[in-house]
C-alpha cells in the first residue's frame, strides 16, 4: 500500500484505533507518527503559551529520533489538521509525494473534527513543522529544494521577535547552513549568518548566538579562513548558557584554530573539552575527528598519546593510520615516519590533518634526539647525524643546538671534540615540577565543581507550590526532561 493510499485511508476512516483491524503494519506506524507529531505540536503550543523554553527544547531534542521515521504523508496529515490554508502554503511547495507536490487544501479535510479548534496556531508550530519538512528534504537528498525551503524558513522565523522562537530559529539556521554546505555553496550565506548573529546578540538570544557562531566558524574553517575565524573568536563571546553540544562544537573549532597557529597547549585543552562535552553514546563521527586532531596536537606538544586511546570502541579502524603515525613518532625514526605519511596521505588529506602532520617531522627528530641523549653521556655529532638520518654535520649541529635551546634535551655541545655531552639528570622531585602537576589537577577538579554548581537549576521561587496537582505535573515534566537530556544526542552527528 503506497503512502498516499494510506492518507486516503486515514482520511476516510478518521483516526483508526492504534491496533484496529484496518491498520496494516505500515499504516500503524504512520498513525503512531501522526499521533506523535500532533502531540509535539500541542506541547509546543503549550510551551509558547506558558513561555516555558525547556518544554519546547525538549520537543526539539526529539527531532533526531523523529527524523528517520518522518514521511511526507504523516507530515502532510498533521499540517492539514493544524494549519490554515495560508499558513500551509509553504508545504504545498516543498512537501512531495511520489515526486509531486502535495495538495494542501485544508478545507477539503472535513474528516478531522478538531481541525477548527486548532486553526489559530502560534507561528512556532508552523515553524516547527516547516523545520521538519526541511530536515526531510535534506534526508531525502532533495538538496536544491532544501536550500530554497530553508531560506524561506529562516525568513519566516526572522519575522518574529518573541523569545519562544529562539530555539526553533537557531535550528532553522542549522538546516539552512547544512543545506548550503551539501550543495557546496557555503560562502554565499556568510553575510546572512553574520547579520543573524548580530540580531541574536542584540536580542539576548544565547541559543541563536551559540548556533550562529558555530555555523560561522564552520563556514570559515571549511574555506580554511583561519585568520577570519580567529578574529571572530577573539571578538565575540561564546554564551554561557548553551547546550553542551554547541559548546563541544565550539571547542573543537577553537582547538583547530589554535593548532594552526602553533598554540598547541591551548589547542589540546580545547579539543579535550570538546571530547568531554560531546555525547558519549553517539556522535561517533564527531568524537573520532576530535580524537584525531587531539593525537596530532598532543604529539606536537612533545607527548605521545596513550595506547588505550586508540582502542576505543568503534574507533579502532578509523584511528588505525594515526596509530601507525604515532608509532613512528614514538621511535623517532624519520624514514618510517615518511613512509607512513606517504602511505596514508589520502586519509590525512581527507581529515584535513595533513598540514599539521607535516609539522610533526621536527618532533620525530626531537624524540630521536631525546633517546640518544638518554642513552649516551657523550656522543659525536657525526654519530648523531647518521642516527637521525641528517645530511651533514653542520645540520646536526644546528638541530642539536636548537633542541637544547627549546629545552628538549639538557646537554652541551663541545666544539673542540665535536660532540654532545649530556648533563646529569636532576631529580625531578627537588624541583617545582610535582607541585605544578598537582596544581593543575586540583585546578581541574575545582573547575568541574564550579561548573556543576553553575549548571544546576532551581525552581522558580515565585511558583505556587501549594497546588500539589501543578507541582506533581511539574515534577513529571522535569523527569521527562531529565530523561531526554540523558538521551540527548541531538544532531552532532549531522556534520561529520
Amino acid at each position: 500500500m503506497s503512502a498516499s493510499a494510506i492518507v486516503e485511508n486515514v482520511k476516510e476512516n478518521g483516526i483508526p484505533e492504534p491496533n484496529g483491524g484496518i491498520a496494516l503494519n505500515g499504516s500503524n506506524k504512520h498513525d503512531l507518527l501522526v499521533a506523535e507529531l500532533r502531540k509535539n505540536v500541542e506541547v509546543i503550543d503549550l510551551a509558547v503559551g506558558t513561555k516555558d523554553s525547556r518544554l519546547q527544547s525538549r520537543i526539539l531534542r526529539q527531532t533526531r529520533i523523529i527524523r528517520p521515521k518522518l514521511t511526507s504523508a504523516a507530515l502532510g496529515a498533521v499540517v492539514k489538521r493544524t494549519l490554515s490554508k495560508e499558513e500551509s502554503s509553504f508545504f504545498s511547495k516543498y512537501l512531495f509525494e511520489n515526486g509531486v507536490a502535495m495538495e494542501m487544501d485544508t478545507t477539503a479535510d472535513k474528516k478531522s473534527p478538531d481541525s477548527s479548534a486548532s486553526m489559530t496556531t502560534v507561528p512556532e508550530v508552523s515553524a516547527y513543522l516547516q523545520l521538519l519538512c526541511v530536515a526531510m528534504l535534506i534526508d531525502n537528498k532533495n538538496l536544491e529544494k532544501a536550500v530554497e525551503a530553508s531560506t524561506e524558513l529562516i525568513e519566516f522565523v526572522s519575522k518574529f521577535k518573541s523569545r519562544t522562537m529562539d530555539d526553533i530559529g537557531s535550528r532553522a539556521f542549522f538546516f539552512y547552513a547544512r543545506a548550503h554546505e551539501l550543495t557546496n555553496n557555503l560562502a554565499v550565506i556568510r553575510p546572512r549568518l553574520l547579520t543573524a548573529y548580530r540580531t541574536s546578540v542584540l536580542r539576548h538570544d544565547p541559543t541563536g548566538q551559540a548556533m550562529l557562531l558555530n555555523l560561522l566558524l564552520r563556514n570559515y574553517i571549511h574555506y580554511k579562513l583561519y585568520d577570519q575565524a580567529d578574529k571572530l573568536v577573539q571578538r565575540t563571546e561564546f554564551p554561557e548558557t548553551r547546550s553542551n553540544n554547541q559548546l563541544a562544537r565550539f571547542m573543537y573549532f577553537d582547538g583547530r584554530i589554535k593548532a594552526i597557529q602553533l598554540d598547541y597547549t591551548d589547542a589540546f585543552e580545547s579539543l579535550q573539552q570538546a571530547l568531554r562535552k560531546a555525547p558519549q553514546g553517539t556522535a561517533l563521527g564527531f568524537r573520532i575527528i576530535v580524537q584525531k586532531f587531539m593525537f596530532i596536537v598532543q604529539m606536537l606538544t612533545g607527548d605521545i598519546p596513550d595506547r588505550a586511546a586508540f582502542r576505543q570502541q568503534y574507533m579502532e579502524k578509523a584511528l588505525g593510520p594515526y596509530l601507525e603515525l604515532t608509532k613512528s613518532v614514538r621511535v623517532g625514526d624519520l624514514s618510517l615516519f615518511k613512509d607512513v605519511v606517504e602511505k596514508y596521505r589520502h586519509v590525512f588529506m581527507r581529515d584535513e590533518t595533513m598540514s599539521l602532520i607535516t609539522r610533526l617531522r621536527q618532533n620525530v627528530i626531537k624524540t630521536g634526539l631525546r633517546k640518544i641523549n638518554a642513552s649516551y653521556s657523550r656522543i659525536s655529532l657525526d654519530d648523531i647525524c647518521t642516527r637521525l638520518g641528517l645530511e651533514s654535520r653542520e645540520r646536526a649541529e644546528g638541530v642539536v643546538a636548537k633542541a637544547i635551546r627549546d629545552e628538549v634535551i639538557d646537554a652541551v655541545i663541545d666544539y673542540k671534540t665535536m660532540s654532545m655531552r649530556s648533563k646529569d639528570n636532576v631529580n625531578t622531585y627537588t624541583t617545582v615540577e610535582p607541585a605544578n602537576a598537582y596544581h593543575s589537577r586540583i585546578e581541574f577538579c575545582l573547575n568541574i565543581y564550579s561548573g556543576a554548581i553553575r549548571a544546576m537549576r532551581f525552581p522558580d521561587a515565585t511558583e505556587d507550590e501549594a497546588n500539589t496537582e501543578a507541582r506533581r505535573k511539574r515534577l513529571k515534566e522535569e523527569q521527562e526532561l531529565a530523561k531526554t537530556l540523558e538521551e540527548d544526542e541531538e544532531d552532532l552527528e549531522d556534520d561529520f
Partner: protein
Amino acid sequence: MGDIAGIQSMVADLTKMVDGPHPDLSKCKDLVNKVKIELVKCPEFQPGAYLDNSESNKPLILARQTYEKAAGLSILCQDIDGFYRNVALLKDFYFDYSSILPPSESETLVIALQLLLLLAENQVAKFHTELELIPEELRDNVYVRFPIELEQFLTEGSYSELLAAKDHIPEKSFAYFMNLLMETVRDEVAKSCESAFDELTYAAAQKMLNLDSVTELEQYSMDRGWILENSTIRFVKDVEGLKDDRKIEKSVFEMIDRSLHYAVELERIV
C-alpha cells in the same frame, strides 16, 4: 566611467618601468597612484556591481596587474607595510574572484613572497594561517615551495641549510626579504649558541653566524654581551647562585598564592 584603454596603456607603462633595469621609483609610485584613481572610476568597482561576464573582467584583471606591480614596487622601495597592503588587496582577486577571473601568472610569486616576509619577521603563526589558504596543488610550485622548505629548516634548526638557500633564490625579487630573513636567522643561531655551547672559536662562530669579518663578529658579540678572550667567545650562562635566589622567591610566592586560592575554594564548598 573609467577609461579602459587609457588605464591599459598606463598599466603597460608601469609594467615596463617596474620590470625594467633601474626603475625610477618615485615616478613609478606616481603612476601607480594615478592608475588606482582611474580604476576606482570603473563601474565594476562600485558597491553591488555585477561581476559575471567577460566585459567586467577587463578592469578587474587590470587592477590585479596594477596591484601586482605595486607589490613588486614596494619591495624595490623596501616598504614592508606597503607590500602587505598590496598583498591584502591582491588576495581578493586570487581567492574571492578565482571563479570569474583567469589565473594570474604572478599569483604564486606574490604568495611566496608574502610567506617569505612573514618568515623573515618571525611571524610563524601567521605564516601557517596563510599557508592553510594555499591549495595543495600550488604547494609544489617552485616559488611557493621555497618558503615552505625554509620554514622547515628554521623550526628544525638546520641553519646551515638556510644559509645555503640564500644562494638559490628562485627569483630576484626574493633577495630583499631573504636578507631580512638572514638577520632573523642570525639572531636565532645566536640564541641557540648561547644555550648549547660553553665557548666557541672565532672562526667557528663567524661561520655559524654567517658574518663577513672578525670586526663584524666582535661588534655582534658586544651587542649580545658575550665575553671575548683569546679569539674565543665565552657565553655567559645565567650565574647559578644569583638566579636561584630569585627563582626560589618566585616559587615561594606562587606557593602562597595557590594555597590561599585552595583555601578560598574549600571554604566555598564546605
